[in-house]
């Protein structure tokens, strides 16, 4: 084929494995095509815009948008509550005070001097 395409088509090899994104992408495209053809065998007799296509709420009333909105800081609530001791410790360390930032630098400098410098 066209030889200038050769460097683009090689497989990426690490020492213990390989990864070829073009083969992967081709497999994905074939899978999507198969799904699309299977979808075409479905039932086409439904009326859009009526009750047949709206979300089903089991007869409950639909609330206002503001009440249904899940805020960003409420997500992963279970995670942050159960590991709360770790998160609170870390958050307290980020004080925002510039003297503390330089204090961390001096601490790391002292530790590195002890380990590498051999003082």
């Amino acid at each position: 084929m066209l030889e200038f395409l050769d460097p683009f088509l090689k497989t990426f090899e690490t020492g213990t494995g390989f990864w070829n994104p073009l083969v992967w992408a081709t497999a994905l495209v074939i899978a999507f095509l198969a799904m699309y053809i299977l979808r075409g065998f479905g039932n086409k007799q439904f009326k859009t815009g009526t009750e047949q296509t709206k979300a089903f709420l089991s007869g409950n009333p639909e609330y206002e948008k503001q009440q249904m909105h899940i805020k960003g800081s409420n997500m992963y609530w279970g995670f942050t509550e159960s590991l709360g001791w770790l998160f609170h410790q870390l958050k307290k360390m980020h004080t925002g005070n510039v003297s503390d930032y330089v204090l961390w630098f001096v601490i790391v400098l002292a530790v590195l001097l002890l380990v590498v410098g051999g003082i």
Partner: protein
Amino acid sequence: MNTIDFLLMHAPALIVATPLLGAFLTPLFGKVHARLRSGFVLLIVLLTCLLVGLLSYDIFITGGIHTYVFGAQDLTLPVVRILFEVDAMSMFMALISVILALVAVIYSWAYMKDNTGLDKFYTLVLLMTTGMLGMELTGDMFNFFVFLEITSIASCALIAFWTNKGKSVEAGFKYIVISTIGALFVLFAIALLYGQYNALNIAVLANAIQFTFVDRIALVLLVAALAMKAGIVPMHMWLPDAYGRSPAPVTIILVGATQASLYGVFRVCFTLYGDVITLPQVSIGWIMVLLGLITILVGVIMALLQSDFRRLIAFGAVAEIGYMFLGVGAGLAVLGAPEMTSVGLTAMKGGIFHIMNDALDVGLLFLVAGAVYYTTRENSLDRLGGLARNMKYTTVFFIIGLLAISGIPPMNGFASKLLIYESTYQLNPVIAVIAVLSSIMLLAIFVKIFYSVFLGPALPQFHTVKESPRSMLLAMGIITMIILFFGLFPDFVLTTIVEPAVNALLGYQEYIAQVLPGGL
């Protein structure tokens, strides 16, 4: 000689001189008309891109190291002139810096349109580009310090650009305090090395270095101060403040400046101390691995708690710097052992490839965050919601950035992270386990942002929100195309750009031989 040869011969100096000259000519054009100034800045950045592309083609394809002597025709010994010594690693970092500068300038047309003082903004952006490129191309330690300070001063003024908001000014103040203390300790270490060996040139110092007590102190000072500027935990706390409160185009260039400091750490460890870094009493490699692991963990854990959009992405950026440090530290730790060279080489390739991938991915995420802020004027994740209906293209760009930064195939993040996972697993399985789990947590964090900002019910206050302006979409599109190209053809990028850079970093003998032929 023809133009191309002339340009190639003078390219290292022209790459630094073009943005410097452009920076000081920008206010003149700004007095005439605003559009003329924007066009002039874009022209300067495109010229710099062209020069960097020309020089990188020469260095990557034909190989070799270019030196440029300031103030003389040829290099005479003993070395008394300031040298620019450009090898493949410098060119790799210069490519990243210039792509980020180009994208930032295109993005800032629409983003900074309503601000006053844009003359000073563009002057400072070009000065910051000069500083970054100078840090990456130079072969002289004191010159490195001067460009480091140029970058810090320009960055601080840009971070505090919105002086009407107290938070931005405070972030700029913290940044300049941290930067100045770091730079002063770097100067102290340079003075120590000068006092020992009477030389400021990196190649001459590398030739003469022994591992005395004073050299050890200089190594520790250099690594600690430059690592603080690069954002390694526990000295990282300035990074979320600075990245989260500055204008979005400034943040994307600031990513490049942070990585130029990381390049400084690698240059010091591999080239300046190349002869002595493999001695058994030096354990810098394992320290770098440990610091990298802590950085990844703290970055990812703190990111889960934030509710401010850009501050959360900044903590993600901290975690990504940990990956780079981990990869290169693993390569440094096994440098002396001959039976682990393939493992070390793979780890270093992963770490250095990740520098470019991370700059692009985090840059794209910050650009999307800036676009959301520009159209809705909201910063907090609690008050945003349901924006995918109004901003379709921005949502697609955010999905691509999300997949890329958490290392999902087929994006470029997967290619570099796969190299890091596989090589560090052979070093110690715990490292690879922590790295993989943190990637999954990064995916969780960015899915949190995606759900709370783009999905969800259509809130009534965002009915009038329109799509982002076209110049912002163009900037995001440029980065996305590069990300997709790197993701679909990783082997091409690896053999053309990353392997010469790793070989140049490990081959300090060629670096010395370019300046001191025959190795005095």
